[in-house]
């Protein structure tokens, strides 16, 4: 048994740590979010230079290869710095999904562009009424003289503001909650009939809602077998959750550090507030919550590519429950111990609280994954 980082992971950690230290301070981040795209394209180019946009992509397509454990190292650093660039949507949901389910032609065309930092991807799966149920797809794909016509709506597509290509799920058969009959298609951003409404999320990341009105794509745009995309989407989302767990650990660690520093430096009644036992115990609970979350994030990243789908989803759901609960406890406790400053826009603490809260809402909250775990037990 060995929980230490590999040599590659140590290098990744050093590289990304240095990058966010130099380029992603809290004030830099504010400017990036306020900019025209809501994220930094120059920084994305730097990700590419450093090889980060090749992580998890096979060497034959120009990538560095690597496991979810490697991506998790980046995720944790990005969590500490609250990086808003659409890394998870492009690398994990986009390139990752193409990597295990795309055709050779799709991979050969798109993955080198992702590695080069020239292509953003997004998975457009969730719908206005699907909530967290992955099998709930109402968008339809109808065969039409060798092509498909896609019609429907997609909701809160992460990274959908920037995406050049979308991986869009649609029903080729069955009704709205059937496991069978869902197919996945590549749709370019400028496709006729595709309307994109991009917006910021409350944590500074970005998303979009899509409306598809008879969007025509060729049969070659389909990812995987016809009607068999639910397992692909489930695996893609499980991998995204594993990434988010690692990101959340980074955010929790940073928020705990800020809070502990505040306990040591804020004085009231002539003493540091960290001398009050009620706050000491609360801070200890936050540290314990962080370590429990870290353990489960490690587990999720380890199991997420397990060929046994049940084993994989149990570990991922368990981790998401733990991350949701730890993030809630740490976020709320941090605000309470900071007092008013904890919810001001100009202080970093509240932004971690927001990110952690939204991670719990992304791809299923703690309640959702508790019942998924219980059902898989």
């Amino acid at each position, binding site marked *: 048994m060995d929980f230490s980082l590999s040599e590659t992971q140590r290098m990744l950690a050093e590289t990304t740590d240095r990058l966010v230290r130099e380029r992603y301070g809290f004030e830099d981040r504010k400017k990036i979010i306020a900019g025209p795209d809501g994220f930094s394209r120059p920084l994305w180019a730097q990700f590419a230079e450093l090889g980060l946009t090749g992580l998890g992509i096979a060497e034959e397509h120009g990538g560095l290869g690597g496991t979810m454990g490697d991506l998790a190292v980046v995720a944790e650093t990005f969590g500490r710095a609250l990086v808003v660039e659409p890394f998870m949507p492009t690398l994990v949901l986009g390139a990752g999904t193409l990597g295990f389910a795309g055709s050779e032609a799709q991979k050969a065309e798109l993955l080198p562009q992702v590695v080069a930092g020239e292509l953003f991807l997004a998975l457009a799966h969730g719908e206005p009424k699907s909530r967290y149920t992955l099998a709930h797809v109402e968008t339809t794909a109808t065969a039409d003289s060798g092509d498909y016509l896609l019609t429907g709506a997609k909701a809160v597509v992460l990274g959908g503001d920037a995406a050049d290509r979308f991986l869009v799920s649609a029903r080729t058969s069955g009704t709205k909650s059937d496991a069978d009959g869902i197919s996945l298609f590549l749709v370019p951003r400028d496709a006729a009939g595709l309307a994109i409404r991009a917006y*910021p999320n409350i944590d500074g990341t970005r998303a979009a809602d899509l409306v598809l009105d008879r969007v025509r794509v060729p049969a070659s745009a389909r990812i995987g077998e016809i009607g068999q995309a639910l397992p692909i989407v489930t695996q893609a989302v499980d991998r995204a959750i594993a990434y988010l767990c690692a990101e959340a650990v980074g955010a929790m660690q940073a928020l705990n550090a800020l809070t502990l520093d505040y306990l040591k430096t804020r004085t009231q009644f002539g003493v540091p507030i960290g001398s009050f036992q009620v706050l000491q115990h609360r801070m200890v609970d936050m540290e314990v919550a962080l370590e429990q979350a870290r353990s489960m994030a490690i587990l999720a990243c380890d199991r997420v590519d397990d060929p046994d789908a049940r084993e994989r989803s149990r570990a991922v759901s368990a981790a998401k429950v733990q991350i949701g609960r730890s993030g809630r406890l740490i976020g709320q406790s941090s605000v309470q111990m900071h007092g008013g400053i904890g*919810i001001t826009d100009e202080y970093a603490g509240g932004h971690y609280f927001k990110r952690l809260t939204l991670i719990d809402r992304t791809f299923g909250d703690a309640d959702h994954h508790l019942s998924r775990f219980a059902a898989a037990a």
Partner: protein
Amino acid sequence: MDLKYSDEERAFADEVRAFARAELDPAVRERVLNHKRLSKEDYLGWHRKLHAKGWVAPNWPVAHGGCGWNAVNRFIHEEVLAEEGAPPIVAFGINMIGPVLIAFGNDAQKRHYLPRILSGEDWWCQGFSEPGSGSDLASLRTKAVLDGDHWVVNGQKTWTTLAQHANLIFCLVRTDPTVKKQEGISMLLIDMNTPGVTVRPIITIDGEHEVNEVFFDDVRVPKENIVGEPGKGWTYAKFLLSHERSGIARVGAAKRELRRLKTIAAAEQVDGVPLIETKAFREKIAAVEIELMALEVSNLRMIAAEKSGQAPGAEANMLKIKGSEVQQSLTELMMEAVGPYALPFDPDALEPGWNGEPIGPDYAAPLAGTYFNYRKVSIYGGSNEIQRNILSKSLLGL
């Protein structure tokens, strides 16, 4: 023992409800019910209607233009109006400085300020907290030095709610640095338009501007604008903070928000089943509803005791703790209820008169922001940790 309201009290509740339904601007009501932004005029328009009816100051004696109601009627009035979606009465004049002036102000101050509070002509804000003085309020450092006929004030206040609307601020200032910290504090009434007063917005993580910093740079305040005696400011502040506690638990507003939570949970679907019918979420709603039931009866016990002449003590601190927890649970569950639609940030949708296309369901836009914002309710007015410190002394003798 009789847990029911009397016939007279029920008739009074009906009267308050009928008044709210007849007089409350439906657009304002809609904004309150749906957590939209309220303008200064939204607050003031309703304030003036209550004033015209003679109902704006339930807690003031009749002699000063108040209602002179007992604790039960005050509670009914506040609860029914909150349930009906009325904007809250802005507390700084009616519930805070008004009672202080009635108890400790001189005749000139009462004659000048009280009618202007009632009419809504003056909007007060509260200058207590400072960057270095939160829970330890008595350590405040804003100082006032007498110079001829004026106090010269220098320092900074923070978390000043709605100072952007205010023309007056009541301030705790240090007038004597040589004595015990509580004994060197005085309360000054300061015109916000005096040279040297600067208001700087504090934006909270929901993107809203509700609180401010207020800076005082050689601000000259007429000598007579002190409340009561120099050095007694701490006594007046404690009076102010302990006054009118019957509404501290916000039971009426919580009932209104519970209804809203149920409406949202009924509209949201999980695999074709309304969220409110799923076991996990239904039980979460039930748990907060039970807390609220307990809170309401506890509140009624307190006001019944108050009506029979007992001053509220530890009960108010308990109600503050439990009331804040209930409000926070409700906002959290509403955010949970909308699932992925908690993510989008659409501040324009909170603006009065906005009629754009919502992102997701039309009730979604304010929910995450309100959850973040409401973390404040266990911090302001004495954090829940401070409430517990008080209770461990006053209730347990520890």
